[in-house]
């Protein structure tokens, strides 16, 4: 088991390293001269050259990369030429916001998706199942940014119940939730649909398994059969799938933040791409990729905990 963990961590580190190179090269590949992008309008060639020297853009690429990584490991991600602020500081401010949005969305997805998925599986073929499954399919198909726009139309413009956009820090929790409610629900609905379908499918498979037949032969109550025997095995599948969907959540956050004007890292990414704010863009994508690799690693390890077959070695058959 220990060997397995070490191997997994090793692979993650390697992946992370390659990812940083990709980020670096990718940002450099954006069209346009970075010096021009980072300077004021109509700067003189001398001023441009000064900027190049200041940001080390005149050095060969590998040297730039090492500089960047070296600084990054010490927590220094440079400064945004647009805002003048330290990239790291901006990230520190914005990451928790996106994190809150993502976690709320995840909560929405789990709270809605899992119970309904179980229900649909247990009552397979009945009206309840059809309604639940079709609604889930609808939730999957609707583009969430459109849903966001509609939500704003309904709840903010027409009904005036919730604010259309913006963000209030957690220091005032009620207002914070008022602002986050719509974005979280919009972001979470898609995932809820996925969770519900996965849960249903995993439960159906578990319920058809031989060990459930054994459980029924033992005369256990349906609640035990479903809740103790089938559920535990299904959760393993669902955890894996949810883990895979984390990336989709962050993707979704990008556009959701744009629509609801939530100052998280999703919005930062878009803004940086369009304003050619390279340090910020590099920093954001780096942090995102790192976080994602980390999250995957955790999911993998969690999976091995839930599934004893990986944890404890098997015997001869």
């Amino acid at each position: 088991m220990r060997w397995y963990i070490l191997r997994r961590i090793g692979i993650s580190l390697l992946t992370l390293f390659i990812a940083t190179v990709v980020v670096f090269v990718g940002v450099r590949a954006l069209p346009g001269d970075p010096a021009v992008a980072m300077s004021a309008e109509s700067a003189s060639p001398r001023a441009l050259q000064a900027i190049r020297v200041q940001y080390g853009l005149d050095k060969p690429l590998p040297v730039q990369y090492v500089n960047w990584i070296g600084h990054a490991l010490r927590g220094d991600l440079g400064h945004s030429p647009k805002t003048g602020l330290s990239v790291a500081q901006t990230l520190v401010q914005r990451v928790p916001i996106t994190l809150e949005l993502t976690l709320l969305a995840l909560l929405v997805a789990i709270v809605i998706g899992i119970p309904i998925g179980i229900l649909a599986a247990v009552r397979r073929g009945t009206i309840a199942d059809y309604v639940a499954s079709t609604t889930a399919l609808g939730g999957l198909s609707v583009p969430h940014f459109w849903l966001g726009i509609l939500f704003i139309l309904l709840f903010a413009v027409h009904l005036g119940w919730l604010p259309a956009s913006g963000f209030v820090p957690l220091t005032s929790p009620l207002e914070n939730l008022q602002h986050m409610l719509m974005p979280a629900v919009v972001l979470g609905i898609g995932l809820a649909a996925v969770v519900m379908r996965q849960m249903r499918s995993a439960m159906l498979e578990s319920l058809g398994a031989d060990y459930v037949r054994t459980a029924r032969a033992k005369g256990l109550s349906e609640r035990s059969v479903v809740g103790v025997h089938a559920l535990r095995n299904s959760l393993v599948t669902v955890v894996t799938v949810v883990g895979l969907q984390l990336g989709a959540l962050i993707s979704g956050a990008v556009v959701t933040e744009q629509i609801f004007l939530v100052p998280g890292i999703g919005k930062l990414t878009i803004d940086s791409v369009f304003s050619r704010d390279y340090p910020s863009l590099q920093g954001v994508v780096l942090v995102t990729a790192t976080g994602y690799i980390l999250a995957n690693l955790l999911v993998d390890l969690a999976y091995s905990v839930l599934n004893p077959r990986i944890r404890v070695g098997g015997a001869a058959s």
Partner: protein
Amino acid sequence: MTVAPTMAPPAPTAVTSRGRMRRRFRRRPLAVIGLCGVVLVVLVALLAPWIAPYDASASDYSAVLKPPGTGGHLLGTDDVGRDLLSRLMVGTRASLTAGVLSTFLALVIAVPVGMAAGYYRGAIDAVVSRVTDVVLSFPFLILAVGLAAILGPSLINATIALAVSQIPMFVRIARGEVLGLREQEYVQASIVNGAPSRTILRRHLLPNILNPLIVQTTVAIPGAIIGAAVLSFLGLGVQPPTPAWGTMLSDAQQYIGSAPWFATFPGVAIAITTLSFNLFGDGLRDVLDVRMGS
């Protein structure tokens, strides 16, 4: 007359009559509805310029933001007076191209790569797996946005960006399935008989990994269609004046209060298209799954 009593022969797993599959499919009304939806959308995309009531690029400043039903505009007009219905119809082309084409592009690249990784293992597998991992460590949209930004906004580049984002998933599936299948006895038998690897891959392995690939495709296409819409929403897809649903939604945002229909209909179009593919895909998956299970 020396053999023990014969038992019923096991049901063949890889061959089921097309007729039976078709019958099973027809018995699921939702899947049939999905198929009809897909066919409808494809037809609209193909015939758009001819069946659209107005020229999708013709602006009419005297009829700006008209509600649905006024002056012969079934769904109303947009902010420069263009007929929404016509724009939606022509916009189908961009969405389907980016959505469906990107998926098939991804398949064409990912399947051979994944199969090679799973079959030959060793160095090829190591490289492919790490590359896949790296690509997968970037969330789908961030990757697509980044690529589209690097390549420059256009339909082709958006398609490429979406294709690249979908490749890892297909590679994983192809690789995983081949890894499992190559241990099967019929593959081992072929190897022992000296069959060239290419033949084994093409004749024995490829047909047997089709099912999970088809299933993933039915999931990928709707995702790609929405991805295409997001890209054009952000201005990274087709450029105006070519209509695209995402762009229309983006334009409509500021008129949300005064002309809500402008923001509603493009979304409906996306939702209907995606829903159709999803329903069809679900039905297909059910029909294929039963086959796989035997």
